[in-house]
């Protein structure tokens, strides 16, 4: 048994992207000691990839904007499945969260009046996205990072120690949330560099680990996105909601193969880019669904006029919510009207002068030039859907971000579920991180402050030993556990590739019941083999070992996605069923909730019918009347049942 390093903090934040850093800042500003644990270096989290902007109804470009309009757009984008209270808080608080960033040193693009500029984006009625060119995520992460540094500088002046009250444990991975009885008592993890284990005792843990994209083959997500927080929450007894809703961003790069999936920002369309098929046709005009018919242009001429005269014209259908555009591209490619490398054409070169493209979309220009030899000022890009975001996540209390059922556990950002319903609008992610990151940090701090010194839940020694044994298993994998899985050691990279293939082929953008059953079957086989995922070498910075441990999380989360997707017999947002193509109003009030099966050890691992996840249907609370009153009755009839409308 190795020695485990132990420390005590008030609040532990797992993840150092936008939500995690915002939570940490808040907890520290509440006067508590806060530790941040992140898999990458500080400042490299996946938030850095966000391009388009932060949605906030500041009304700087169009004065008609306000939180009510933003709320409406968010609910429409999510096909009314959203947790309406989260959508309300998000729309109300987003402007304050953006303005606050300026006081921490963020430098957004400006309007001619010197205000924060705002750009158009899919599903947003008015120009709403605060941005910095197409590198808004970098600005966000750097600003939060620098704010943390400034708080550390304060502590250095006061205590002579930069890390007295706020410390970032970088390149560390948490593998277990620890509890005493029902309550959170800390986390167990390992340091990548040394391979050493550590325990941080803390009564409050904020999960801010992002998403699950690395379970899919074509994804815009980085290696960190292995569903860690989702799995940690399940293992700690929390529940996941809406896991069937996975967003495939319509425009990822499709060529060359090594960059397939890398994101092409929606700003390309927001700023005037159009989608064409191999016949040169702007096909999106054929794909406007009934619920959006009145909101989108009917002709190219009208759509083009909208960019300069939005008050008298409707927006082009290229700016429909992402789920609609992704499905349309998928259909065009399937119908044989795709581009040479299996995508469609996204063109800005015929839409605006080269110098405007270079100014507005510098990263995209750079990305295509460097990685694909394509000059986007002179020729169209080839794009296709890429796994981008999971709407589903930890079931939380909307006001406090507290995970339901696990006192001391909080979740914010992509790892939390509910806010975006069945489909997230572009730009609503960065604002989500800030609004709910702050709330999670605030309420985690208040919760932790409620324990007198020495009265916080303790970390059980036996659980540390179990967590340690679990983490060390890949080093003695051969032979495996007699009861569960027996055979030679498995290569974790091979298992990961097979998992990605299965999820992309069988639980991807278009789904069928038979295929999802097959996916569950393959997942059970992979689960068994993953128990024997073995690694060579030692524990110091060993990526094979890290992947072997991440597989547990990806397999758990993938099972949630597959089970929930099989259960929901309708199509809505990021969940499209070939065998149930219509949206069913009766399904709107149903959330599918995943929890870990009580009998999760032993044989359930290998049994595809049983598996590790139990699924429940949960009715959602009715939308508050004053929020419903923000919509026209006629629109509501498309989403709500007659029963809901009359009551």
């Amino acid at each position, binding site marked *: 048994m190795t020695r485990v390093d132990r420390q005590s903090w008030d609040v532990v934040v797992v993840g150092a992207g936008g939500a995690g850093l915002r939570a940490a800042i808040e907890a520290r500003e509440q006067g508590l000691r806060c530790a941040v644990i992140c898999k*990458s*270096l*500080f*400042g*490299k989290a*996946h938030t*850095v*990839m966000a391009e388009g902007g932060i949605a906030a109804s500041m009304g700087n470009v169009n004065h008609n904007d306000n939180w009510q309009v933003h709320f409406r757009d968010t609910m429409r984008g999510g096909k009314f499945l959203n947790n309406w209270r989260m959508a309300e808080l998000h729309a109300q608080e987003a*402007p304050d969260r953006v*303005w*606050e960033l*300026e*006081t*921490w*040193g963020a*430098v957004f693009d*400006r309007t*001619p*009046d*010197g*205000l924060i*500029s705002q750009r158009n984006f899919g599903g947003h009625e008015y120009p709403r996205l605060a941005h*910095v*060119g197409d*590198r808004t*995520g*970098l*600005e966000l992460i*750097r600003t939060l990072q*620098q704010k943390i*540094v*400034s708080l550390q*500088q304060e502590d250095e002046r006061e205590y002579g120690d930069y890390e007295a009250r706020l410390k970032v444990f970088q390149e560390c991975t948490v593998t277990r949330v620890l509890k005493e009885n029902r309550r959170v008592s800390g986390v167990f993890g390992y340091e990548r560099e040394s391979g050493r284990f550590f325990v941080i005792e803390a009564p409050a843990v904020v999960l801010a680990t992002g998403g699950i994209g690395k379970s899919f083959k074509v994804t815009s997500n*980085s*290696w*960190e996105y292995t569903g860690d927080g989702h799995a940690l929450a399940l293992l700690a007894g929390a529940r996941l909601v809406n896991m069937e809703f996975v967003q495939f961003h319509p425009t990822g790069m499709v*060529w*060359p*193969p*090594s*960059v397939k999936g890398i*994101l092409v920002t929606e700003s390309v369309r927001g700023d005037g880019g159009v989608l064409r098929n191999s016949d040169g046709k702007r096909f999106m005009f054929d794909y406007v669904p009934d619920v959006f018919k009145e909101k989108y242009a009917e002709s190219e001429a009208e759509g083009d006029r909208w960019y300069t005269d939005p008050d008298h014209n409707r927006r082009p259908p290229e700016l429909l919510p992402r789920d609609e555009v992704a499905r349309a591209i998928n259909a065009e490619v399937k119908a044989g009207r795709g581009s040479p490398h299996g995508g469609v054409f996204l063109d800005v070169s015929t839409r605006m002068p080269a110098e405007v493209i270079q100014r507005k979309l510098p*990263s995209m220009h*750079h*990305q295509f030039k*460097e*990685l694909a030899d394509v000059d986007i000022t002179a020729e169209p890009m080839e794009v296709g859907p890429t796994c981008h975001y999971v709407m589903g996540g930890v079931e939380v209390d909307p006001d406090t971000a507290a995970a339901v059922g696990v006192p001391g556990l909080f979740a914010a950002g992509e790892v939390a579920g509910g806010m975006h319903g069945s489909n997230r609008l572009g730009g609503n992610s960065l604002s989500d991180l800030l609004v709910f990151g702050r709330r999670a940090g605030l309420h985690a701090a208040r919760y932790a402050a409620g324990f007198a010194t020495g009265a916080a839940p303790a970390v059980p020694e036996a659980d540390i030993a179990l967590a340690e044994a679990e983490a060390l298993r890949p080093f003695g994998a051969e032979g495996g556990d007699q009861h569960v899985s027996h055979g030679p050691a498995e*290569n974790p*990279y*091979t298992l990961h590739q097979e998992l990605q293939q299965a999820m992309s082929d069988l639980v991807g953008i278009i789904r069928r019941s038979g295929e999802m059953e097959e996916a569950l079957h393959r997942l059970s086989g992979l689960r068994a083999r993953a128990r024997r995922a073995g*690694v*060579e*070498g*030692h524990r*110091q*910075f*060993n*990526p*094979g*070992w890290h992947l072997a441990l991440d597989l547990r999380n990806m397999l758990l989360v993938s099972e949630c996605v597959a089970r929930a997707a099989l259960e929901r017999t309708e199509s809505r947002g990021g969940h499209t069923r070939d065998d149930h193509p219509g949206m069913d109003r009766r399904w709107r009030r149903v959330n599918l909730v995943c929890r870990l099966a009580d009998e999760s050890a032993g044989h359930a691992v290998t049994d595809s019918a049983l598996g590790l996840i139990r699924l429940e249907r949960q009715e959602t609370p009715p939308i508050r009347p004053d929020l419903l009153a923000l919509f026209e009755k006629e629109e509501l009839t498309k989403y709500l049942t007659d029963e809901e409308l009359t009551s």
Partner: protein
Amino acid sequence: MSYQAHFKVWRGDKDGGGLVDFEVAVNEGEVVLDIIHRLQATAAPDLAVRWNCKAGKCGSCSAEVNGRPRLMCMTRMSVFDPAETITVTPMRSFPVVRDLVTDVSYNYAKAREVPSFVPPKELGPGQYRMKQEDVGRVQEFRKCIECFLCQNTCHVVRDHEENKTAFAGPRFLMRVAELDMHPLDAADEAGIDRRRGAREDHGLGYCNITKCCTEVCPEHIKITDNALIPLKERVVDRSYDPLVWLGSKIRRRRT
């Protein structure tokens, strides 16, 4: 379009190591990081490499490819002759942790030494007004992805470990310049003299504008021309202009 390439990859840790030879498949459109990943999946599962976004946005996968500091994710294999041996080594200016991973804590330590943005007292959130033309230069510097290639390349520390104490490096001198050019930074009111700090605390004087940092910047930021030289000029104005010097003394006496 596929071919077998010959790679030499440095493997080892702080106690030493050396180049290890690999024959590995290369496919059309791939970058150096793809090949490193293929080595992990096939020949060397414990080969340590730091990476994240694989799209040139996070600045994690910095290394030296054939001796040139670069991001591995943005170095296309097509720039090399298929017959050429590709040598991948860790950044030279930072201590090796393992294989291609280095200890970059020097940079985080330097980041903490630069006084943060000081918000103007009289303006609340939402009241900031800045012209685009006044923030363009600051935004250029904020494009920095902190890959630390400039820090690795700068000869002030690359060949002189002992200078690390006194020298913040191009990345963090650029950070000082960024804050000094921010239209609303209120450092002066808080008693912080950024220009004096650049010279006395961060070692601006060590820089002799050889522009090595600019050459390796994957974001094509003109670090030397737009940040370091103007900062030097401002420092010189402040230090040697007798009127400015007198002014600063008089103002100080008044407070």
